[in-house]
C-alpha cells in the first residue's frame, strides 16, 4: 500500500502552479489529499506529477459576497472543511453547507481535507458536490488561458470526472445564499458513523419550488424537482426520476427504500426551516 513514484512540485505562486501543470496531462493537484492519497496508496491512480498547492498564498479564504455580486459565500481552495464548518458567516448565509459538512467523514479528516478539493474530486458518494449542484453554485478555475467559472450543472461529467481541465486549478467554490423564507435540510444514512453514505439527500425549499439532491444514488450528483408533489408522494416521485444502483454496499431495492425515507425527511426539515426561519 505505497504510492507509485511521482514527481513533486510545491510552487509558491498560482502562476507557477499552472505552469507546472502545463504539458503534464497525468499530473494531479494535491490540496488536502484526503481522497487522493488513499487512491495513490491503493494504486488506483498513478499520476506522473503532484503539484502541491498547500504553499500558495491567499487560498484559505472564506468570504461572504454581496453588494453588487450575487449574495453567497466564496470558499477558497485551501479552506479546510473544519474551518468552513466552524464559520459563523457560512452558517448564517447558507446553512446547508455546515449541515452537510458535519457528515463529511470525521473531524480528523475534516482538519486536512478541503471543501473545494472534495467538490472537484467529483465523487458521487460525497456530500459537497451534491450541495453545490442543488444550490446552483459554481467553481472558479484558473488555467493557462486565464480564469473561468464553471456552473455546478456543467461540472460533473461522470464518475470521479469533472469538467476542470488537466491544466487548470480550482481556486474557489461559490455557494449562493439562502433566500429569505427558504429552507434547507440534509440527512444521510451510512453503515458506520463518518463513513460514506449508502444514500444521502439534501433539500432546498423556496416558495413553491421543492428540489432534492442525492448522493450515492447515481454516478454523478443528481437533483430532482419535486415542486407541487403531495407530501406523502415525495419519495415515490423522487424515485420515478432516479435509478438507484446496486453495488457491494447496498442493493438497488434498499437504496430505493432509503431514497423514499430520506426524501420525506429532508423536505420536511427544509419546510420547517422555511416556515420558522433558521
Amino acid at each position, binding site marked *: 500500500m505505497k504510492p507509485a513514484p511521482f514527481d513533486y512540485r510545491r510552487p509558491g505562486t498560482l502562476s507557477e502552479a499552472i505552469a507546472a501543470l502545463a504539458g503534464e496531462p497525468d499530473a494531479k493537484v494535491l490540496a488536502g489529499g484526503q481522497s487522493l*492519497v488513499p487512491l495513490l496508496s491503493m494504486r488506483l491512480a498513478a499520476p506522473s506529477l503532484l503539484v502541491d498547492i*498547500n504553499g500558495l498564498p491567499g487560498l484559505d479564504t472564506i468570504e461572504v459576497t454581496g453588494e453588487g455580486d450575487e449574495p453567497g459565500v466564496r470558499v477558497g481552495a485551501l479552506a479546510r472543511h473544519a474551518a468552513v464548518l466552524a464559520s459563523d458567516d457560512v452558517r448564517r448565509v447558507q446553512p446547508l453547507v455546515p449541515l452537510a459538512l458535519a457528515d463529511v467523514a470525521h*473531524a480528523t479528516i475534516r482538519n486536512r481535507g478541503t471543501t473545494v478539493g472534495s467538490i472537484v474530486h467529483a465523487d458521487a458518494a460525497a456530500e459537497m458536490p451534491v450541495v453545490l449542484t442543488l444550490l446552483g453554485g459554481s467553481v472558479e478555475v484558473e488555467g493557462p488561458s486565464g480564469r473561468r467559472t464553471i456552473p455546478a450543472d456543467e461540472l460533473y461529467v461522470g464518475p470521479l470526472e469533472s469538467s476542470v481541465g488537466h491544466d487548470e486549478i480550482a481556486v474557489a467554490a461559490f455557494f449562493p445564499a439562502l433566500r429569505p423564507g427558504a429552507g434547507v435540510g440534509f440527512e444521510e444514512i451510512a453503515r458506520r458513523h463518518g463513513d460514506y453514505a449508502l444514500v444521502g439527500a439534501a433539500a432546498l425549499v423556496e416558495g413553491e419550488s421543492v428540489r432534492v439532491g442525492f448522493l450515492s444514488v447515481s454516478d454523478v450528483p443528481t437533483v430532482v424537482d419535486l415542486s407541487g408533489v403531495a407530501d406523502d408522494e415525495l419519495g415515490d416521485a423522487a424515485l420515478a426520476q432516479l435509478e438507484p444502483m446496486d453495488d457491494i454496499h447496498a442493493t438497488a431495492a434498499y437504496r430505493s427504500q432509503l431514497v423514499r425515507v430520506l426524501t420525506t425527511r429532508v423536505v420536511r426539515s427544509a419546510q420547517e426551516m422555511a416556515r420558522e426561519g433558521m
Partner: protein
Amino acid sequence: MSEELHDVRLTVNGTTHEVRVPARRLLSDALRHDLGLTGTHVGCEHGVCGACTILVDGAPMRSCLMFAVSAAYHELTTVEGLANDDGSLGPVQQAFMDCHGLQCGFCTPGFLTTITAGLRQNPHPTHDEARDMIAGNLCRCTGYQNIVKAVERAAELAGTAAGESPPEPPRPGSAQLPSEDRDEDTASTGLGA
C-alpha cells in the same frame, strides 16, 4: 530509474530532524522508518482506522494521508510527545492507565493524540461529546466503553493540572455514565467504575 529525493526538515515534538525521502514517502512511514518514532502505528493505511493520527500544528490528522514532503512546514506532535516534561505520563495517557483504556494497545497512539487535541478544544465534554470525540478511531479489541471513560477521566486530570478546582461535581452524562450504560460497562470489563 533512480527516484528523486527531497531534503525535508521535520519538526517533531519540538525537535528538528533532516530527512532525505522520495516524494511518495507517507508521513507515517517517515516518522517510523526515517526517524525511528515507532509510537505512531499504521493500521489500515487509507485513513479509516485512525491508528496513525498525529497532531499537525495541534490539530489531529492522519499521518498516512500526508506526504512527508508536505509536512515540512508544520509542528508535528506524535504519541512520544504527549508525556509531561518530567517524563511522567500525560493526563490522557494516565487516564488510559487508570480506566483500563487499552488492551492490545495497537490503536492507542491514535486515540491519545486525538483525545489530547479534543480536550484542548472542549475541556469538559459531555458523555456524548466524549463518544463523538473518538468516533473516527477504531479499536479492534472493541474496548470503547473504557476509552470513553478515559476521555472523561483525562478531562478531570487535565482540569486539575490546569489549577481548576478538582471537586467539580459530575454533570449528568459527564463523568458518570447513564445508568443503562453502566451495567454494560461493568459487565464487559469486570472492573466497574
